């Protein structure tokens, strides 16, 4: 256990809001990266909607990739956000020492 020679007086972890933002943004970023790769491995953005009429959605492929990436990121982030919300607002699981009615006994 550290006590002597320790000059930290404040908390060493992120505030809860910071953790929440990170938990939503980062996993969805990773998922979006993979989704972008797989999606555009099979689909050429220059060919999306390019059936003579209507005109191609993305004349510049780089725009197509970027729009795809941020779209996937947004969708995955929404899903992460909802999951986090459900986890954060649920009653805690009854623990072994718990009361079993959804409330946790004092630890």
């Amino acid at each position: 256990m550290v006590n002597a020679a320790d000059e930290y007086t404040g908390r060493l972890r992120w505030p809860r809001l910071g953790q929440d933002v990170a938990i939503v943004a980062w996993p969805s970023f990773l998922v979006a990266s993979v989704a972008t790769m797989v999606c555009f491995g099979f689909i050429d953005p220059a060919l999306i909607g390019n059936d003579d009429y209507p005109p191609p959605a993305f004349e510049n492929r780089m725009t197509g990739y970027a729009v795809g990436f941020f779209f996937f990121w947004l969708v995955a982030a929404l899903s992460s956000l909802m999951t986090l919300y459900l986890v954060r607002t649920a009653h805690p699981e009854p623990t072994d020492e718990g009361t079993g009615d959804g409330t946790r006994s004092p630890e």
Partner: protein
Amino acid sequence: MNQATPEVDGELYAARQKIYPREIGGRFQQLRVYAVFALLGLYYVLPWIRWGERQAVLFDLPARKFHIFSLTLWPQDFYFLTWLLIIAALALFFFTALAGRLFCGYACPQTVWTETFVWIERWVEGSRLQQMKLAKAPWTIAKALRKGTKYFLWAVFALWTGFTFVGYFTPITELGHKLLTFSTGPWETFWVLFYGGATYVNAGFMREQVCKYMCPYARFQSAMFDNDTLIITYDEQRGEPRGARKKGADPKAKGLGDCVDCTLCVQVCPTRNDNSKGLQYECIACAACIDACDEVMEKVGYPKGLIRYDTQHGLEGKAKRVLRPRTLVYASLITVLLAGFAYSITHRNVVAIDVIRDRNALFRELPGGFIENVYNVKILNKDDAEHEFSITAAGLPGLQVDFGDDEVEVEPGGVQSVAVRLRVPRGELRGGSDIHFTIRTLDEPALEATGKARFLAPTN
């Protein structure tokens, strides 16, 4: 963790105190320095290497072609990438089962870039104590200058990182010219700033918080651990009970273990973790505590290794096993997949065909009792030499192929679209039939590829 200041959950906005890990040398820290130089060296140098007329490693997204030295991969070769990712994941499992979080400590981009940012910080602001003093000091011009210099150097390094990243996707020499003349395209500018910005924030400010709150690997790595996995661990039996002592004093006479309770292992820890409480997911396996403890043990004249790489079995004095079902299964899977990958990438077909039916008409009835279908045949030549192709079709009696020529020339790395008319005598033909197109190079040995299509005829 600090006992004097218990951490309260649920505080939404309380700012986090920055961790100033104590500087430490030693053999594992030396290894980590080598790893940083090797990995970042590779990252920053690779895009500048040339291969003939082009950049050796270029993921040409606008043209949808990946160049890796002599190899050119097309979207059709996408499964190679998937395959590689599976091999990489298995390798991660394998090394985790073998020696814990080697990846985190030595190879993870988060760790590696954080390390370089810490170096810059130390170079500008000095040692840990000097940094803490500076942070507490009132704002003066000298302080602003020092802090400003640090942020400036971080920003330059981060931008260079972003520039290099984009240099894997846009020829880097061109990109450099564009950057110097401020004429980079909108997406190039955006991704340089995006990747550079992410590096700046992740390595400069978020640091160990990324490992603690954002990294999924940190949480599931323990699933790959067993009692024979090398982990960084404190030898509790040897160390406890801990306590301060005079130099040369006999610990046994005082009833003490080998731990002198100097707390250096926690002070050098970049995540401020106390490993004497057992293995925790906050530990990124940087081995700084091993180096710190070894130094202390040497000073007080005890054998090194109170904190060391060891296995659970090793700590309990049991035999250590490297070869065990878990490692053997991972190793054989990796070997099989790697061999398969090497074989298929060297034996992959470098010509490919893509057949699309003409959309304007299902079929045409020609005088003389013939039915005609029109196709757009795309010939892909992924080889690095030019080839001439013949086009044939099979699947229906009396099939005639007409594309206005005898052969089609396709340049190296090129795609050629050819309008092909197929004619079949009407005869008994009703409805649709499957047919096959075959392209074949005229040189020896011939390269060929076959594509399926549908031939349509009137149903009555």
